[in-house]
């Protein structure tokens, strides 16, 4: 309500600015004229002469020249006196009275958002707790850390939350700061490696690998780092090595370790697909080409499975990612099409797929 009142007030002021001069009594207009200036100039020559700034001869020459201009100006100065144009004035007045509010109102309604209240920081701070979201809490912690970046505990607490929110680049920064302020530990380096890996869509990049190796250098039994190094081996096509790492971990793991099933699944994956084993010594000497062949075989198998049962969103994503990593963008795009076709009936899964694809850098 107050907004409309203020807007109306401003409109009235604007209209008034146009109407005021139109309505004023036509008194003698305050106006400078050329002749007045030349008269001033003549006066100034006299003053300069009196002050000794110019010589008599020079003053004379100047006087002559100014007088000449004065005469010319007096001759040329328009004799036509003010010619009041009542009709025009009325037209302008009416236009201002009606047109101005109309045009400005229309323009504003098209551009503005009058219904939206201002939302300054101070008000936000007092906003009810209902709007307190995780985002907001994180924001507050980040704000505090911005001011006081050496608060190691803050970074330590913030990092896992950022990971869960999927803000991997920020998580990476937070973990780096945590390492810088709290000192390096195996866990921190492993977490950092994981954050980098998540940021790279699950690919164990060289950078991530370096972090895991760093972690293992600090503590050879760091579980997470070992698992991911295994994954790195798998991604590089060294499935045998991956299986070796994981099997060693399983052997050492206590029976109630929560990560046992994950390891078993991973192991089943590599062994099931690549039929690894110690006895296949020939595979150790397998050339790059053979290894690549093997990988292609795995991808083909996945593709075949998905063609039979197309409801597995994760499977599709894995397939697309595999094609992307192999540098076969055309096939990746083709399988995106297939996936969409297979999932058209299921809106929820389709959305899941699209989000996953966005994560891979393929936009719908």
């Amino acid at each position, binding site marked *: 309500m107050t907004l409309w009142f203020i807007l109306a007030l401003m409109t009235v002021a604007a209209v008034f600015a146009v109407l005021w001069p139109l309505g004023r009594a036509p008194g003698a207009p305050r106006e400078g004229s050329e002749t007045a200036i030349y008269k001033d100039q003549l006066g100034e020559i006299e003053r300069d002469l009196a002050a000794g700034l110019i010589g008599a001869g*020079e003053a004379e020459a100047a006087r002559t020249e100014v007088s000449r201009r004065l005469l010319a100006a007096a001759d040329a100065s328009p004799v036509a006196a003010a010619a009041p144009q009542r009709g025009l004035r009325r037209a302008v007045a009416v236009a201002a009275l009606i047109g101005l509010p109309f045009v400005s109102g229309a323009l504003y309604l098209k551009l503005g958002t009058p219904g939206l209240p201002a939302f300054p920081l101070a008000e936000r701070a007092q906003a009810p707790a209902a709007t307190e979201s995780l985002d907001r809490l994180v924001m507050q912690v980040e704000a505090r850390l911005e001011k006081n970046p050496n608060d190691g505990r803050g970074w330590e607490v913030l990092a896992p939350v950022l990971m869960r929110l999927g803000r991997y680049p920020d998580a990476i920064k937070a973990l780096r700061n945590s390492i810088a302020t709290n000192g390096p530990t195996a866990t921190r380096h492993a977490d950092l490696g994981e954050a980098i890996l998540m940021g790279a869509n699950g690919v164990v990049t060289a950078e991530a690998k370096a972090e895991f190796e760093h972690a293992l250098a600090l503590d050879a039994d760091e579980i997470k780092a070992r698992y991911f190094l295994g994954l790195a081996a798998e991604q590089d096509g060294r499935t045998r090595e991956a299986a070796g790492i994981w099997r060693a971990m399983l052997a050492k793991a206590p029976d109630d370790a929560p990560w046992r099933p994950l390891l078993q699944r991973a192991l089943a994956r590599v062994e099931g697909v690549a039929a690894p084993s110690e006895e296949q010594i020939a595979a150790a000497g397998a050339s790059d080409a053979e290894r690549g062949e093997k990988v292609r075989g795995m991808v083909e198998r996945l593709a075949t499975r998905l063609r039979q049962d197309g409801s597995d969103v994760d499977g599709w994503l894995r397939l697309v990612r595999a094609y992307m990593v192999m540098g076969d963008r055309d096939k990746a795009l083709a399988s995106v099409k297939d996936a969409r076709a297979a999932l058209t009936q299921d809106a929820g899964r389709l959305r899941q797929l699209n989000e996953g694809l966005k994560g891979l850098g393929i936009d719908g």
Partner: protein
Amino acid sequence: MMPEAGHYALVLALVLALVQAVVPIIGARRRDPALMNVAASTASAQFMFALISFGALTASHMVSDFSVANVFENSHSLKPMLYKITGVWGNHEGSMMLWVFILALFGALVAVFGGNLPATLRANVLAAQAWIAAAFYLFILTTSNPFLRIANPPVEGRDLNPVLQDIGLALHPPLLYLGYVGFSISFSFAVAALIEGRIDAAWARWVRPWTLVAWIFLTLGIAMGSYWAYYELGWGGWWFWDPVENASLMPWLSGTALLHSALVMEKRNALKIWTILLAILTFSLSLLGTFLVRSGVLTSVHAFATDPARGVFILAILIFFIGGGFALYAWRAGSLKQGGLFAPVSREGALVLNNLLLTTACATVFVGTLYPLALEALAADKISVGAPFFNLTFGPLFVPLLIAVPFGPLLAWKRGDLLGASQRLIAAGLLALAGVALVMAWSWGGPALAPFGVGLAIFVIVGAVSDLVERCGLIRKPALALKRARGLPASTWGTAFAHAGLGLTLLGIVCETTWSDERIATMRAGDQTMVGGYSVRLDGFAQRHGPNYREVTAQFAVARNGAAIGVMEPSKRNFVTRGSATTEAALMTRGFSQLYISLGDLSADGTIAVRLYHKPLVLLIWLGTVVMVFGGGLSLMDRRLRVGAPRPARSAKALQPAE
């Protein structure tokens, strides 16, 4: 509510500008005083609404209202208050708001102080001003609206860029814009004169001070930008011939020419058509500068805007006003009466020479700045035109200009006495020659041109001083000198200061570019190196914490001839949360010279890359511009009317008049 009120105020300012653009012109044609007076009241009201609008945007930034998209994108609740405010114009939309706000301010000033102008002239000037304003309001509202809102405001803003949080960078745009936009007044006056088909004495009396105001701000703006680059960017350069810098240099050159030709017009009623042309040209170059920086056509250090829609709109504005201005000029200039005769050797003649050289120099900068763009558009070849181009073109044109500078004020109006002027410059010439000889002897085998550069600078400075000495009669009648000095018009002092400032800047430039000593070294604690006759020892490092950064500071002990003279502490800052780094150079001032140290990377083995400079007389570059601005200010104080009286040939020797 506040952002919406500001938004509506901007719309109202546009509508008022449209009224102001049309009604007064009709009034002036029909000679209706009431319709003409609409110009003044709408100009004031338009300024008021621009103020409300700009104020609302500033207030939104101050309270961190992230429901305004512009605030969300360019602010952060943790910014210091000062940078929340300066951040208003640190982005594209806000800086355009500042542009129109200053435009409206100048319009209102004409409305308020223009009482002594002929009514038709005032009406036409304000109408022309309103055309420009309307175009820019429209530009803001349609392509760069700072009042767009976000329905679900985010909790935190996006920008906290540490590099942009600097007072030099914060003040640079307003000063530059006061200069750019100030030239709109002379443009509007030129357009009004062309519409009326006549230029009277009142015209000249108004244009010069307004041009001077704009020139002063533009000079300050350029100098500040240059100093910022010098101390913040970390490699000690102060002018890069970057297109953005050139964009501000071009209006400065043609504005300086305008200043001098307006002088001829004011005093001698001559050069009318040329002055009109320069006024149009200068503002056109200001618009061009705005276009280059704002359209994203060059992505350069000032790259914020890269939206083609905006670029096309500004280009349209540019074509409309420049094309319109020159078309009007071509059509109407013939109807203006020529006046004032003068001999080639005279004050007018000298000022014409000044204009000729300044505009030509401006043209070479224009070519160097736009040629790469044209080539890219036409031939898809990418080239860069850097310092060597400008040194080869701009330099040779400026040398004769500088030689001519001391002669100008010594020549009489209408017909001058070159021999007499030369005689009075004998002292300056001798000193300059002595300077050349001295520098040559001192730097034997060094750069051949540098001694002449120093000599030229001395000639300009001493020439400016000897003009003053001459006018006070310090040598002829020392007793009366003080009295006469007091009686001298402020504008005479202004001229002398401005010219001497130019000489100082030149001296700084010559010395800095020729004898600057640079060392790049890897040092470890305890290492020592020599730069410019100073020995610099790296004592060690210290880690420090700032409010939102960590920094590594290196301590350098500086000594000269074995005597310690101080400690310098350059640092490298790491802004933790953003993960960005800045280099903070350390400066030590010795007289007008400076030692400059900035840090490179710290290696794992404890060595650090260090860049050390000794920059002799570098401060004179900016001190000179300050002196120039001071001279401009003095000249502005001079409220006298100006009549240039020719000196009668017979009595020239006998009377020795001051002006």
